[in-house]
């Protein structure tokens, strides 16, 4: 008879769990892998049937996503002369010349400004509100908290038309400030509630100790509470950033030129010069990088954050 543990999973359970995890990982990672692979294919490889798993990698997609190109006739090409740079050479193979930069870099910058801007604002306002709700006797506290939560109860897009009209009359249409404001408003309820949970877990004695030690309430807040809440702030920031970064519907509706973010821009690559899938894939791949870097930087906090408070130490 073999001994067995009540809490330790058995060998079979471990195998089952392992297969489940690996299977799930494959399902979620495969599209990503495909996008990244496509971004390195040539346009003809990208639409080849049956799909090509092995192909000759090229950075044409990346060049295409950053540039606009023009097709020239033989005489014109000769007039332009030999291609100078590596990317000139790359497009010249197809008889094209680079006529200028595309708007991708600009849209990408917009995404960074709006995504990180709204995240910072969300965290600053959310932490302050969560601290107040957690520590002070705010009149109608529970009602206010419910109101804040209730803003999350319908999909934000349900109020798209009122917001569109409001933005138009306020002159916020297609501005960075407008988009930052909008994403902050949508995310703030999440940030207040998440952060309140984290701050509730920090014993009030730490602040009291700081008050006794001669610090003001505000000093106690940023010297003692904030470092303790770092975990919560990091995970909340990731959630806020992911939403603002990926948001598509409002971005399509409210931005067109000046403040357009990358999500509505990337699909417009199709059609400018045919169905340039590698360029789309390259845009999408690049678009993934900031969130990935941000998440990896805060990974340690995030993992602790998700399970925080689950077990009392």
């Amino acid at each position, binding site marked *: 008879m073999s001994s067995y543990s009540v809490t330790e999973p058995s060998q079979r359970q471990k195998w089952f769990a392992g297969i489940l995890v690996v299977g799930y990982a494959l399902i979620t990672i495969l599209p990503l892998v495909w996008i990244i692979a496509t971004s390195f294919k040539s346009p003809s490889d990208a639409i080849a049937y049956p799909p090509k798993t092995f192909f000759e990698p090229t950075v044409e997609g990346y060049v295409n996503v950053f540039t606009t190109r023009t097709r020239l006739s033989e005489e014109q090409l000769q007039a332009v002369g030999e291609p100078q740079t590596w990317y000139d050479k790359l497009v010249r193979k197809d008889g094209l010349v680079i006529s200028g930069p595309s708007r991708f870099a600009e849209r990408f910058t917009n995404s960074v400004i709006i995504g990180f801007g709204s995240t910072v604002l969300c965290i600053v306002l959310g932490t302050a509100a969560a601290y107040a709700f957690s520590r002070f006797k705010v009149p109608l506290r529970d009602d206010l908290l419910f109101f804040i939560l209730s803003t999350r109860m319908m999909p934000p897009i349900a109020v798209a038309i009122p917001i569109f009209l409001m933005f138009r009359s306020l002159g916020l249409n297609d501005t960075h400030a407008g988009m930052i404001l909008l994403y902050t408003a949508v995310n703030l309820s999440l940030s207040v509630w998440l952060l309140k949970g984290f701050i509730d877990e920090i014993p009030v004695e730490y602040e009291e100790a700081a*008050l006794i030690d001669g610090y003001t309430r505000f000093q106690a807040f940023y010297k003692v509470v904030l470092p303790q809440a770092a975990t919560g702030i990091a995970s909340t920031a990731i959630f806020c950033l992911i939403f603002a970064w990926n948001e598509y519907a409002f971005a399509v509706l409210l931005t067109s030129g000046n403040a357009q973010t990358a999500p509505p821009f990337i699909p417009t690559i199709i059609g400018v010069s045919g169905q340039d899938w590698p360029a789309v894939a390259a845009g999408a791949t690049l678009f993934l990088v900031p969130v990935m870097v941000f998440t990896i930087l805060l990974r340690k906090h995030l993992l602790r954050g998700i399970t925080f408070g689950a077990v009392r130490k």
Partner: protein
Amino acid sequence: MAQIRIQNVRKEFGAFTAVRSSSFTIEDGEFFMLLGPSGCGKTTTLRMMAGLELPTSGEIFIDGEEVGMKPASKRDIAFVFQMFALYPHMNVRKNISYPLLSQGLRGEEVKSRVAEVARILKIENILDKPVGGLSGGDRQRVALGRAIVRRPKAFLMDEPLGALDAEFREHMAEELRALHDRMGATTVYVTHDQLEAMQMGDKIVVMNHGVVEQFGKPQQIYDWPATKFVAQFIGSPPMNFLEFEGMIGVGGGLIDLGGIMVKVPTSREGRAGRLTLGVRPEHVTFVSDGAYRGRVSAVEYLGTTQIVTLVTGHGELKARIPSSHRVHEGEQVGLEFDARTLSIFDAETGKVLLSEGNEGVLGHG
């Protein structure tokens, strides 16, 4: 160091009154115990001294200055929390030096003050460790270090030994008391453990339901309790209460306990009706020919002494007698009470009647 004076302090939390009209004075350099059961208002009183709660009414004087409405950071006192509340993101050295930084001290001064405190508390070897991995005793020492490093006007401690193991608590209590004697700092210490209060305190305030029941030296409180609550809260086992109908006049020295006359300290107050005779267990002696008798119902052996539970005509009574005295369950024994140590309480109000014995302690009040 400073004297702390509490005057008519009252604290309400909404409809709940945590502290009603408390007044007492803590003299400079005293080790002062705030004692009472949980929810009696002792911690609230301490927190009002610290400035962590503001009194609803009344005044608090520290060093002659009224501080009732001042923020904690302006009162120059140190507070030791039950859970220590060491800053978890700082190591031991930073924790201890943190109060100094708020005073604007820097560099060498901070270093030497921290080193001095570390030497006093014998924690030099853990100064650079994070506080997370410390043992309970070391955490306690670091918390004390953070308190004493700034040389405050007073130390306020909220059950600082409550989070420690029983065996370690005793050791730490001794250390604390020794530290206090060495520094001579005014210390206010909250506890619900009467033994701890008796063992460490110069003076004790006993609180119950937000009211100060009695205030005095440990022995005075033990010997001459002002109320039945104090008599029962202090001492283990507590004071015995023998309920009886009777009377005692001013200058009277005898009571009629079920037909048996019992000598008591000469009374300074007259009262008739339902009264309670209070007897400490160690003031009961067994005599073969005593008129007042009881039947032994249980015996607890405690080493040099034993606690004998007796059933008498006025209820259960516990006696503490030497273990050498052999008693058996069911045995009938004669009892005698040490006449100089007895207290008589008014059973209705729970207040003690003034007598020759307690007038020196309870005086005018």
